[in-house]
């Protein structure tokens, strides 16, 4: 078994960092400071300041691990293109570079170019930039990307993945456990909402997170969507190594340390004997409601690799759902 490069989520606090570093990953990533730029996830408690990053980076570099800061808002409301916005982002990126940050993950093409032209930090293009064709990958590489986190919607489309690999020389990352809906219709709107709710002021204060609740409700009502979701099983990592994927990224920086320990161990060991839902970065209601025996999914990737994504003609996922997704594991007192 070759040594795989893992990019692991860091919740943001020192106690969480120590847990993650035990696994000696290639890099860890954490959200930046929402006062400057938001990320693709909500904030949990106190968010790390530049000073916190500086303190933590000493510990991280002692273990020869890299730190990647995710500032991957999908919407910067045009402010980044104003003089004041440019000055602020430039100041913040300078502060991160001075603190010793190794890489940034950004979604906006402007920030890819800004980071590349004016800083030494490596640049990862976020999955929120939705790189899902060789053409788009080439565009971002020419803009300066050192790594591209591929749109998870094509995680099971090996023809396109191989096409991207053949088209660019930069590192390619796949998200292994995002657990979102395949071809999610809420994805753009939801990431835009998160950008404004968890980003810089002025912040919106929605009554409800419509997108998240709708997504959960759809899966409760139709568990087949759980199977179609483009997660990658720990056992299937090898198939992605073979086509030249360089880095495997785990989601979960808003989850608890205990959850992260379990999920990270499974992917590092490339094996999990239990409920696949334990590994997916999904809300607790979905995790508690469904039981999917991971072992029962052995071999499904071979079908998905050649799938034409016309579900009405195929029904493979529907039959698989009937066989492996169990809703009877709901707690009965």
């Amino acid at each position, binding site marked *: 078994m070759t040594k795989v490069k893992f990019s692991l989520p860091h919740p943001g606090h020192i106690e969480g960092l120590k847990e993650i570093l035990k696994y000696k990953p290639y890099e860890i990533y954490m959200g930046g400071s929402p006062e400057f730029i938001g990320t693709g996830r909500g904030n949990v408690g106190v968010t790390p300041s530049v000073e916190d990053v500086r303190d933590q980076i000493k510990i991280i570099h002692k273990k020869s691990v890299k730190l990647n800061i995710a500032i991957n808002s999908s919407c910067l409301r045009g402010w980044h293109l104003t003089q004041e916005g440019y000055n602020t982002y430039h100041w913040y990126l300078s502060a991160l570079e001075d603190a010793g940050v190794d890489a940034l993950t950004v979604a906006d093409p402007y920030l890819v170019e800004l980071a590349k032209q004016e800083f030494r930090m490596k640049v990862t293009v976020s999955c929120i930039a939705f790189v899902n064709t060789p053409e788009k990958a080439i565009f971002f590489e020419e803009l300066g990307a050192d790594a591209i986190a591929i749109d998870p919607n094509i995680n099971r489309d090996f023809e396109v993945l191989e096409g991207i690999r053949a088209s660019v020389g930069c590192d390619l990352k796949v998200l292994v456990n995002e657990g979102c809906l395949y071809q999610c219709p809420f994805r753009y709107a939801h990431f835009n909402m998160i950008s404004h709710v968890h980003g810089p002021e002025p912040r919106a204060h929605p009554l409800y997170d419509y997108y998240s609740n709708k997504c959960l*409700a759809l899966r409760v009502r139709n568990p087949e969507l759980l199977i179609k979701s483009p997660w990658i099983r720990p056992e299937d990592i090898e198939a992605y190594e073979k086509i030249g994927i360089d880095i495997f990224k785990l989601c979960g920086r808003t989850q608890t340390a205990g959850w992260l320990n379990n999920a990270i161990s499974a992917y590092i060991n490339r094996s999990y004997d239990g409920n696949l839902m334990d590994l997916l970065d999904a809300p607790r209601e979905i995790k508690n409601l469904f039981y999917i025996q991971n072992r029962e999914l052995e071999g499904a990737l071979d079908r998905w690799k050649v799938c034409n994504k016309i579900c009405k003609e195929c029904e493979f996922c529907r039959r698989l759902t009937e066989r492996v997704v169990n809703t009877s594991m709901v*707690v009965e007192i």
Partner: protein
Amino acid sequence: MNYTEILSSDRAKIEKRLRDLFGFNVSVFQLSNYALGCGCTGLTVSPTGINIDDLEVFKDHIFPTVIESAHDLLLDPTIAYAIVGGDAGVSALHLADYCDRCAVEYGGADGRPRPDTYVIANFEGGKSDKHLSNLRSRFENLIRERTGIPVYLLEMGVFALRCGCIGISTFTRGMRRDGLDELLNKLDKIAEELSIDSDLLYATIIPGTIEVMTLNVKHLCEDCRKRYRNPRSDIYISRWK
């Protein structure tokens, strides 16, 4: 005292204890006893005006009152933890009897499983009364039978608010408007079992959609009785009693 009288009285006791320690600007706006879909049960104290340092320094003066309240409600907690916001303010203090899964997920990291979660104490516990958990399961099953969908009842909580309101809130996932009134009547029967003499049966629905978020029954205080006559856009009133 019946169950909800205990809940109301304990809310006032905990608030008095916190005010004796920190002054008049501190309040407990809600005390709730909950059962989750995963199997956890617990008690949530929702304070305003205290921060995590207050809690850590004065925990030996606060906890006896909160634990006494847990025991009054037949809860035998395994853990006490606080949820802390970006301003270091404590938004909730939980005493929980964890299910096996949450015990693992919230373990480790030197008592800081997430940046917003501070474990204050661990207890042997684990022998809580299961009545509320049974009621949650029973109501979840009713919803499923009525809708034909495996609707998930994330939480059933019985609460006492500072204003004087008491009631039950349940948090649903996957539920739509079908059968709403009938299910609220069923929830009201459960409320009666818990000695809640409700005035109002209502649901919250994401405005402009069919997605039901919560089902609730409430015995309202005078102020809230007026307020609910002109409710927010997400509130669907099924019945006044």
